[in-house]
């Protein structure tokens, strides 16, 4: 299975609809401080079902919605759509291309879709359960985790092995 594209609209600093297409090699994302690179990683974790705003650097989940700038007004919702190639049937669903969408309104109301069909957040999480993708895997690697590995106590470090076991 591989990532084909992630499309974000209204998510954090992505006030305009923006799509990233990925190929099977290594893709690098570059740019100055604060331009939105880590926000893409947050969009990725969010669409896969992250429920803790603090793990997305926010205080409330509505912090994920573009809240305005000097030149733009705040938006009313955030929408992220992730499209994957599933021709090897890694996901327990009989489509060659799978897209999952998460949408959050300022009211706090949420909508979720798998291939444009409305579903619940739990359906999205179950879809990825056996793939090793999601909060307990190494599909995201960043400085905080490296710091944890080094600075954690020997007892805390156990969790790394327990999760893999």
């Amino acid at each position, binding site marked *: *299975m*591989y*990532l084909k594209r992630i499309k974000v609209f209204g998510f*954090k*600093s*992505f*006030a*305009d609809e*923006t799509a*990233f*297409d*990925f*190929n*099977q*090699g*290594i*893709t*690098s*994302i*570059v*740019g*100055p401080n*604060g*331009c*939105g*690179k*880590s926000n*893409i*990683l947050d969009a*990725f974790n969010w669409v896969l079902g992250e429920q803790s705003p603090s793990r997305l650097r926010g205080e409330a989940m509505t912090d994920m919605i573009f809240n*305005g*700038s*000097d*030149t*733009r007004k705040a938006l009313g919702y955030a929408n992220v759509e992730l499209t994957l190639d599933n021709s090897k049937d*890694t996901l327990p669903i009989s489509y060659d291309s799978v897209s999952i969408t998460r949408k959050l309104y300022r009211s706090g109301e949420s909508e979720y879709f798998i291939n444009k069909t409305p579903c619940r957040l739990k359906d999205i999480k179950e879809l990825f359960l056996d*793939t*090793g993708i999601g909060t307990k*895997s*190494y*599909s*995201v*690697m*960043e*400085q905080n*985790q*490296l*710091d944890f*590995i*080094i600075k954690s106590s*020997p*007892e*805390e*470090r*156990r969790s*790394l*092995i*327990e999760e*893999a*076991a």
Partner: protein
Amino acid sequence: TKERFLDTFNRVDKNFGEIFTKLFEGGSAKIELLEPDNVLESGIRINARPPGKNIKSIKLTSGGEKTLSAIALMFAIYEVRPTPFCILDEVDSPLDDNNLHRFLRMLKDYTDKTQFIIITHNKLTMEMCDTFYGVTMEEFGVSKIISVKLREAQESARAG
């Protein structure tokens, strides 16, 4: 269960030793159970010895050495349970050019089973990628992207 934890622990330890030695071009490393007779509760210690140095504990090693050792351990666990794709966010900032080069070469070796997306400030990292996206914020507060497919650009340059 005790067997399952021990089995995973031993596999990670073996991977860790191999990946560390590959990334540091020498030296040795292992993870160790502080209480081998209390497997279900024992804490885990990391021993890392960069090449030529007589250091046992990872504590005395440098910032860059700690980062590279932690990367080795993350990938040691990843090898036990590989993921189809992996996003790395600026894990390369503390690495000098030589260490960065070896880390990138290791990433390339994993591309047959995993698709990588690496967020970086480092020119060396950009140069060895197939595609890169530049993210900018000309309009303050609003992200915008520019995409450059290096392989395509190079091939069309060669063709035309």
